[in-house]
């Protein structure tokens, strides 16, 4: 319990740090948002108009701490302001729609890469130095060395443009009305295929290496020898004795990844114009849409903090050593 409380304390500090960053970053660095928005309009605006805009953006004459207080109170009422570039959509709406797509892409590809990666890692460690072990892990390492967007471009070119297997952008056909119809779900899945493939290719090596290395250590334990001596089937030793004990480091990795799917797919989403959080973030930055940018950053960070806290709870449940601390 004390462990969890300590972690919770840390997450609260981290959340406050994120809040402060989002609030002060635009206000401390040279050029406030108003100037940035007005820059393209040059000197055609009068001082009165500039002041009006500053006021509308909440950049008035009030002291900073007062602005911060109002920012926080708005935030807790679920109000992150209005997006400039998609005016007048509230920032929270943009986040809600894009979060859906990011989660779909992130969770499916995470699940796939975890399952495949662990199986490969287990097999590789089991026949260490064997044919499978000398080919598959190095190949996955090789693929993983490529920058995510470069892989994405390659997949887009071959599977999308040359073979026409999958649609090359967006998350679903615009002509099909959204809903639980077969046509719509089919369209969503077809649009999901390529980004998911790339995401799996990028992340697979990490799971393989984590599991393989952990398996190698566990296989050297005495209880494995004991299991062999008892004459248990190889399968049973492999999965029930070795893999089960080797999986703990992966749980930590899983937490880091579960968090990173929120912000870690920026490039993949960008290449496939997949309308997730990352895609929106890059668009917001390009359009100098400060409220949306701040909102997305906060949403991603908060999501990561939440996931990590949930994982801490899970961790105390599976690893008794943490509880006894």
């Amino acid at each position, binding site marked *: 319990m004390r462990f969890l409380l300590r972690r919770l304390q840390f997450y609260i500090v981290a959340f406050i740090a*994120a809040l402060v*960053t989002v609030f002060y*970053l635009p206000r401390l*660095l040279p050029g406030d948002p108003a100037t940035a928005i007005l820059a393209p309009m040059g000197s055609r605006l009068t001082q009165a108009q500039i002041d009006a805009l500053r006021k509308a953006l909440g950049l008035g004459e009030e002291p900073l701490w007062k602005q911060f207080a109002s920012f926080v109170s708005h935030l807790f009422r679920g109000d992150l302001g209005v997006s400039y570039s998609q005016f007048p959509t509230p920032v929270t709406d943009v986040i809600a729609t894009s979060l859906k797509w990011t989660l779909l892409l992130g969770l499916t590809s995470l699940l796939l890469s975890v399952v495949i990666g662990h199986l490969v890692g287990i097999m590789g460690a089991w026949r260490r130095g064997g044919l499978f072990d000398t080919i598959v892990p190095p190949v996955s390492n090789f693929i993983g060395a*490529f920058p995510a967007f*470069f892989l994405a471009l390659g997949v887009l*070119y071959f599977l999308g443009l040359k073979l026409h297997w999958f649609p090359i952008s967006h998350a679903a056909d615009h002509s099909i009305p959204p809903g639980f119809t077969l046509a719509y779900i089919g369209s969503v899945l077809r649009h999901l295929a390529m980004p998911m493939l790339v995401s799996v290719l990028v992340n697979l090596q990490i799971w393989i290496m984590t599991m393989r290395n952990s398996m190698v250590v566990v296989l050297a334990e005495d209880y494995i020898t004991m299991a062999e001596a008892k004459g248990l089937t190889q399968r049973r030793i492999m999965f029930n004795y070795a893999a089960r004990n080797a999986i703990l480091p992966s749980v930590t990795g899983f937490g880091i990844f579960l968090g990173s799917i929120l*912000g870690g797919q920026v490039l993949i989403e960008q290449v496939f114009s997949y309308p997730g959080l990352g895609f929106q973030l890059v668009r917001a930055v390009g359009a100098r849409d400060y409220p949306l940018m701040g909102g997305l950053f906060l949403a991603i960070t908060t999501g990561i903090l939440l996931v990590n806290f949930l994982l801490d709870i899970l961790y105390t449940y599976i690893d008794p050593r943490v509880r006894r601390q």
Partner: protein
Amino acid sequence: MDKRQGIRDTKPKNGRLRVLEQRFPWLFVIVRHRQARVGLAIISVLILMALFAPVIAPGDPTEYHGVTNTPPSKEHILGTDPLGRDEFRLMVWGARVTLLVGFGTAALAMVIATVVGVVAGYFRGIVDDILMLITNLFLIIPGLVLLIVLSAYLHPGTGTVILALAFTGWAFHARIIRAMTLSLREKDFVAAAVVAGESSFSIIFRQILPNMVNLIVGGFIGTTIYGIGASTALAFLGLTKMTEISWGTNLFYAQNGNALLLGAWWAFVPSGFCVALAALALTWINFGMDEITNPRLRAERELRKALGRKFMQRVRATPVRFRER
């Protein structure tokens, strides 16, 4: 060297080499490790390409050649990009900024990581608590997302990109260095130095730091990979100084000019391949480095050499190596 001799490394060395090896063990492991040697060769070639760009690809890389998206030909070995620039020149000259940013980021990030890690680990107590809190904050906040948000506020340029990348990339290694410092601190030679009346400053520099060179070099290589990948990603998203020639900006202009849709794969392949090659080469060098920090890996490799692949598959336990010094 005789294959069977692999398990005991007793090759005679002359005196000067032995001194060098004691001073820079990591250098020797890299040179002996096959993958690391290949990696070192590749990265050297890329660095030479950057240094001698004016000799290898003379002429202005931004020069407009009158034809856009031409496939590779005698005139343009690697074709031209959507802006009618020679792809070969772009690739060669692009190495300069990308590698500079990569190594610059690594140097700066490792300086921060080492200072924070050593200070936290050596002085412990409240200093440690505060520094680790900051480190953990940086670890949990998504790097690429923060980087994208930062780039919206910073004036883009090589220097600011290095700053931003180092700012988001130091935390992981700070934690590792802290852990190492904590364990080194308890060693007898540090206690002896304390008794001998050495100052904290000289203990850190003369007793602790020299024992962490492997770790710092490994971290440097890892951060270089991060720097190259992340700076390329930022450029690809159009968030750095776009007048610069780097592998990332080359890819950005290729993407922006819809090179893929037009089938001009040659606009992507040279720069993208160089990024992947650099990342892969550095990863291989780090595999070599891993064998220093984890002697079991080295022992395993030597055992495999001695026993041959067939027999190795039957061995479960990881050998621990004995070495006469």
